[in-house]
């Protein structure tokens, strides 16, 4: 999908998730790397960014120079790599390094923002003075001292990616390619994309808190093309999360390659379902994209305090059956959407958006939490130091329910079973949301029959929630994860779902 400017996103007029296959550009570290294992101490982070507490406080004083209620500094150093296999050769690699600080000044709900890639006091003071232009009153003082806020570590890994050279990745890609081609003679082509990145972040706020985090991430995509009787089909699969190299065990590689192949060859027999409203059963895992679009974005607190979300007047109301609970969680071990702290320095948590059918909590950033006078929920995330934070999701999933998968499928007279997805989008005011089903099955008289492919499903968020009529006990979190776009910023996220049935939703098939 490439880069999208904020304007392009707003032109699209909606918040939406895009499952991105484009690997980011990454680079090896030109600065002194930490000695393994990764650091925990505040002094290590200060040294890493070449700043002192005194300088940070001086910059804050400049940021609050015209007034303002709060300011924060977000330091970031990200190192990332991509290695690609194409035509049986690992013939392409790229890397990227990003380094800088973003300075935000807040007055009420208004934001001034500037960033600099040069972490000299002079450059930071200049950026601070630029950001300060938003304010004109309510002077706040810079803090006298900064105290470290510790957080648990939800993503311990064995070896930092900075210590894994490309020579150790090449054999993995070649192995995956080998498994793919051996799995089915109809495979004519495959591509493997392996990415990893490592971020060091440090956030200091004018309330005197400072927090740091070491954030690994990896993803491996396998896509393949098969041909049979002149017909070509293409699909793929991906695995990933906040893991180290140890995650890609022989078992994981087998599973990754074989799932990619199966999803591809199954498409030869696939048909398009009928167009129109029907029962839809969602497979566990990735189908959680439904939640991300149907309710997740609509529950982001900035939309609600601006009253533009269809959920703006629904807190405390029943929005779903009592066996439906939906959470946004940053604490799942090693998942793509997990964070130890958010990008405002607030602790992560498991937030109930819907508990036993009742709408409970929005997803807050600092500004929204102040507005609603609640505790922050740890959802204040940003794409990089170049961007101001806003409420974003983490791992969004539904808890297990009282039914069984078999009884759910058997209950469907005529509908579809949706299994693999690519992307989705939502207009949070109207509540229209969609997600694209790459593959699945028809359900006819309680049995999965023919495969289906390439249909978009569209519905109304609050309406669809009331139509979740069966929820099985087999909740799964998606293994790979997705990338969410909102207001021109990308954020890594994941989702999960048990097998569920939606009694009626519009499927983009073909009329008979």
């Amino acid at each position: 999908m490439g880069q999208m400017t904020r304007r392009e996103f707003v032109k699209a007029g909606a918040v939406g998730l895009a499952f991105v296959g484009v690997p980011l550009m990454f680079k090896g570290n030109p600065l002194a790397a930490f000695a393994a294992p990764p650091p925990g101490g505040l002094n290590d982070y200060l040294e890493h960014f070449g700043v002192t507490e005194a300088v940070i406080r001086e910059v804050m004083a400049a940021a609050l120079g015209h007034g303002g209620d709060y300011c924060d500094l977000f330091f970031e150093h990200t190192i990332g790599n991509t290695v690609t296999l194409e035509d049986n050769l690992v013939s392409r690699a790229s890397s990227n390094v990003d380094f800088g600080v973003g300075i935000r000044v807040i007055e009420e709900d208004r934001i001034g923002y500037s960033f600099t890639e040069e972490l000299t006091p002079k450059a930071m003071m200049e950026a601070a003075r630029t950001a300060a232009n938003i304010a004109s009153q309510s002077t706040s003082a810079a803090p006298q001292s900064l105290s470290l806020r510790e957080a648990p570590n939800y993503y311990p890994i064995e070896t930092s990616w900075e210590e894994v050279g490309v020579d150790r990745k090449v054999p993995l890609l070649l192995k995956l390619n080998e498994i793919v081609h051996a799995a089915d003679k109809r495979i004519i082509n495959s591509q493997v994309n392996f990415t990893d990145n490592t971020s060091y972040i440090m956030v200091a706020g004018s309330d005197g808190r400072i927090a740091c985090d070491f954030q690994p991430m990896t993803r491996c995509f396998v896509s393949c093309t098969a041909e049979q009787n002149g017909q070509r089909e293409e699909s793929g699969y991906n695995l990933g999360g906040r893991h180290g190299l140890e995650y890609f065990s022989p078992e994981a590689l087998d599973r990754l390659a074989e799932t990619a192949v199966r999803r591809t060859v199954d498409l030869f027999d696939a048909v398009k379902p009928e167009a129109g409203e029907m029962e839809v059963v969602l497979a566990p895992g990735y189908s959680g994209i439904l939640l991300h679009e149907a309710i997740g974005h609509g529950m982001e607190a900035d939309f609600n305090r601006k009253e533009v979300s269809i959920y703006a007047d629904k807190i405390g109301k029943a929005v779903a059956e009592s066996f439906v609970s939906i959470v946004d969680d940053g604490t799942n071990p090693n998942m793509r959407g997990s964070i130890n702290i958010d990008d405002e320095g607030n602790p992560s948590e498991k937030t109930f958006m819907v508990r036993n059918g009742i709408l409970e909590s929005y997803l807050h950033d600092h500004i929204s939490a102040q507005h609603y006078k609640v505790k922050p929920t740890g959802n204040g995330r940003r794409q990089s130091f170049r961007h101001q934070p806003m409420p974003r999701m983490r791992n969004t999933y539904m808890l297990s329910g009282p039914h069984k998968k078999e009884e759910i499928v058997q209950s469907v007279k005529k509908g579809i079973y949706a299994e693999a997805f690519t992307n989705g989008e939502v207009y949070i005011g109207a509540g229209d949301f969609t997600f694209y089903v790459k593959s699945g099955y028809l359900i006819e008289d309680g049995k999965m029959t023919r495969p289906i492919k390439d249909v978009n499903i569209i519905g109304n968020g609050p309406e669809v929630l009331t139509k979740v009529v069966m929820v099985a006990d087999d909740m799964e979190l998606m293994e790979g994860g997705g990338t969410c776009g909102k207001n021109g910023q990308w954020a890594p996220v994941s989702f999960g779902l048990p097998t569920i049935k939606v009694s009626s939703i519009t499927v983009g098939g073909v009329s008979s």
Partner: protein
Amino acid sequence: MNKTEIYELARWVADRAKKAGADEAAVDVTRSRDIEIECRLRKVETLKESTQMSLNLAVYAGNRYSSHSTNDVRRDGLETFISEAVAMTKHLNEDPFRTLPDPKYYQGRQAVELHTSDPDYENVTSDRRVAIVREIEDTALAVSDRIISCTCSFSDSFYETVKVHSNGFEGDRVGTSFSMGAEATVRDESGGRPEDWDYRTVRFFKDLPAADLLGRSAVQRALRKIGQTKLESGRYDMIVENRTGGRLLGSLIGPMNGRSLQQKNSFLDGKLDQKIGSDKLTIIDDPFVDFGLGSRLFDDEGMATKQRVMIEKGVLKSYYIDTYYGKKLNMEPTTGSTTNLVFEYGNQSLEEMIKGMERGILVTGFIGGNSNATTGDFSYGIMGVLVEKGRPVKPVNEMNISGNSKELWEQLAAVGRDAYTYSSRRCPSMSFEEIQFSGV
């Protein structure tokens, strides 16, 4: 850093890469500045301003290839960056197709003024920006008391980029862009808070549309959605509004790319000189559009750009093939990516096209959906207006269109004269016959 310094830096990096063991190197260095202002509730809500640098180095060493980017352009850091880049490349597999382009492709660069950079950019003041946004907001808020929220904004950016290849290419591009507009959310008693937007982007400050036009338009578009519902599934004629046509076009442009073709992921494979659409479909890739958002004299590989007829009266005439995939496909390269997409336009306005519609749906936006480049299948969510006997009847939403691109473009019945110039994809409104919609 000024342009001369940026050139010196780029040349230095290319030179150091060769000293570190690369056979060839390509360097791009960019300096940019971005400013953004947003207003809501008659206050400035967001104010952002920054400048940044970025440097990209592509290394070709023993037929092995890698690319690397950094935003830290200090020389001492770059020494390590470069040597690590070259060192890591040696671990990759050899790829005989990986070389810089043959310098013959750099020849013939046009010497025409494209007006991509506004000389008045530096003179645009903060006060002026805020005044524009305030005017958009005042006009918008005056349209209706059903407005729940309205956010208006203005942003502008400047970039300067230098490209140096070790086999002789040197070139630079400079550009500005200005964007402004509004998004509005309105009250709908039947439930929901419909929203819509109108943002536009131009190269030159003087070409920005009137602030009051955008303010009014965003709100009116949102108001038009009140009461939107879905219709019965079935086949309807369809008009796709010009500003949203670019998204539909993606399902045709993607499969025209050399990588898709070579990787056997394109339904347009083997279809050069074959009819893939109706004779109303003529698309030209034009890098020389004056003030064009996609205009450029050389592409990302340094190849001199040319106007290219991509599709002529429905016949596929050309693909987008860069030099790498050109070698893999054993085809002459064209260019790797789009510049400005210009159509052979018709002679009707959107209003006239609607008047001529017996029964169909005017699609004003897509939501989600995707297309399969290998098979041509697509399915997209839509929103729009039901039209009967030439008149808009009611707003529609929560519907999908589905089909296959192999058929879709043959069903293109007419294109309008209303090129959407606020995008590099200068689509007209387009009308199609008998498209599969799914709803109830």
